[in-house]
């Protein structure tokens, strides 16, 4: 069945096809349509699932933890401030090794208050122990939600998975999606059998105090699980292709990299746009390709080394910033290839708070980089300070001077 749907409704379809048993979520723009659609599915009897309405995202994740700890397949969705509010419990879910899947619709953090897209919210949740997968098409949202349960529940992994896609650019955009047959999804994703759960017949306690004697081992096991997830993500993507037909890459997705001597590196919808940039640059005689980072955690270190090692230049597009350093993806791409190539790597920090990024902007900057005309490694190419910004700054300085006399 083919639908023309919003990215949010497609995510809801993913949860439905995965036969999620508990959904606990709190509405926040631009995620709201996800849980509205799930509520409708449940109300109309199309989905057998318990929806737990809660008063906050902190409680949403607490309920998810409880449901998953009972061995129940659990799903949530959030965005930006919602994700920030549940941050403590993100650590809990990963730390006690609970499989679950949560969609995060990537939205900027305020203030200034902004409902539009950037990746600051999920990148700030980088080190919580959650696997993070970023989507670039509607079909990928659907397929990744289903795949995420397989990855999360795999006994080699047993970590929660965050499926991320861009606010509005994907969440509220209507595009086509192929809805697979439930029977096929059921074959791909059998019912959840948890590695551990709260069970009166086999009582155990989990997540209580541990002393320095044991804590490092717990953290090391999470690190190993993340390492295992590299192979599992690839395997699951391949198996999905065999059984259901569609494929969006494993840890990375590449475009025209076979003969490339330069590459763009990006995540999310901008990476889709970068395919157009690659085509345009190739028409202008540059052998450029695209590496789309699909899995940000675990990070595709070996893949980036292999793909970038022999190139002459690369440019990373960051839809977030690590204040006081540079774009977070830029830092990590550089770290991955450290000692494995001496190509110059450039960084564009752009598209923050929903700033529209036309493909020409990326193409122009990439061409300038290839001509050796970009002085700074990390740039903000779409920042344009106008008279309004300067006026505000001048009046604040004036106020400070006047008040300072007292």
């Amino acid at each position: 069945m083919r639908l023309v749907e919003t990215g949010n409704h497609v995510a809801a379809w993913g949860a439905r096809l995965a036969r999620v048993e508990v959904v606990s979520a709190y509405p926040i723009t631009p995620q709201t349509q996800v849980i509205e659609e799930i509520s409708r599915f449940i109300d109309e009897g199309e989905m057998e699932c318990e929806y737990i309405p809660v008063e906050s995202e902190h409680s949403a994740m607490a309920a998810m933890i409880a449901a998953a700890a009972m061995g129940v397949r659990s799903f949530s969705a959030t965005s930006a401030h919602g994700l920030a509010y549940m941050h403590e419990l993100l650590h809990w879910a990963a730390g006690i090794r609970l499989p679950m899947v949560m969609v995060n619709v990537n939205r900027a953090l305020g203030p200034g208050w902004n409902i539009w897209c950037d990746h600051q919210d999920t990148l700030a949740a980088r080190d919580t122990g959650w696997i993070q997968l970023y989507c670039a098409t509607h079909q990928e949202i659907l397929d990744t939600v289903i795949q995420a349960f397989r990855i999360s529940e795999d006994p080699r992994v047993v970590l929660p998975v965050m499926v991320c896609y861009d606010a509005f650019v994907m969440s509220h955009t209507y595009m086509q999606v192929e809805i697979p047959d439930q029977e096929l999804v059921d074959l791909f994703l059998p019912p959840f059998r948890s590695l551990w759960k709260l069970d009166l017949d086999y009582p155990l306690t989990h997540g209580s105090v541990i002393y320095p004697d044991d804590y490092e081992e717990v953290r090391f096991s999470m690190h190993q699980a993340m390492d295992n997830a590299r192979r599992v993500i690839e395997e699951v993507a391949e198996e999905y292709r065999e059984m259901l037909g569609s494929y969006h890459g494993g840890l990375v997705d590449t475009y025209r990299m076979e003969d490339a001597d330069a590459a763009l590196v990006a995540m999310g919808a901008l990476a889709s746009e970068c395919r157009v940039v690659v085509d345009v640059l190739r028409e202008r005689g540059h052998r450029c390709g695209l590496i789309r980072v699909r899995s940000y955690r675990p990070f595709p270190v070996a893949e980036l080394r292999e793909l970038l090692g022999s190139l002459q230049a690369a440019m990373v597009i960051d839809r977030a910033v690590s204040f006081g350093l540079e774009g977070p993806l830029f830092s990590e791409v550089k770290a991955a290839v450290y000692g494995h190539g001496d190509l110059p790597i450039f960084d564009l920090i752009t598209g923050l708070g929903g700033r529209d990024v036309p493909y020409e902007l990326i193409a122009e900057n990439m061409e300038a980089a290839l001509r050796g005309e970009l002085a700074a490694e990390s740039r903000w190419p779409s920042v344009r300070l106008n008279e309004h910004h300067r006026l505000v700054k001048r009046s604040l300085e004036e106020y400070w001077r006047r008040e300072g006399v007292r």
Partner: protein
Amino acid sequence: MVEIRFHSLGGQGAVTLINLLAQAGDLVGKKVQAFPFFGAERRGAPVKSYVRMDDKPIDLRSQIYRPDYLVVMAPSLVDAAVGEGTKENTVLLVNMREEEATHLKALPFETYVVDATSIALELGMVVEGMPVLNIVFLGAVSYVTELVPLEAVTEVIRRNIPPGRMESSMEAARLGFTSVRMVREARIRHHREKSAAS
């Protein structure tokens, strides 16, 4: 690829319009993308919406700055709509009576008008005092762009519109399709011919 930018007022129904148009494109085998720019959604506030259609998958995700078709659903938005960007061959479709369209002729575009407000009022398509123009424009856009035939439009109406509003919606689409008038020819003739009084 064909790119369309819509300028409307909150309450005129543009979000439903682009959704139905995308569904119609899907019916005739096109790859489709439709999205509004979400801002302060209030009744009466200006809204921009975008539609892309192509024969191959659409990778672009940005807004549309050089539309093939510029659709203006409120006459007061013409200047703002043109100011947002056009290209040499942009075709303009405005909600306006033919006799009021004299100043549109000064614009350098192949230009069409449709008196969508009158059609909507005649058919009683009014919500809280505001004429809802989406179905009329669905017909008019079908006529002007030739991207989707009227049969595809009526099919998506059949699939999406509740039975109580079905008959008036079908009529709105038909009238939108047949009431478009050309008010200015293209400076350079396009490959396709359109008569001024069809």
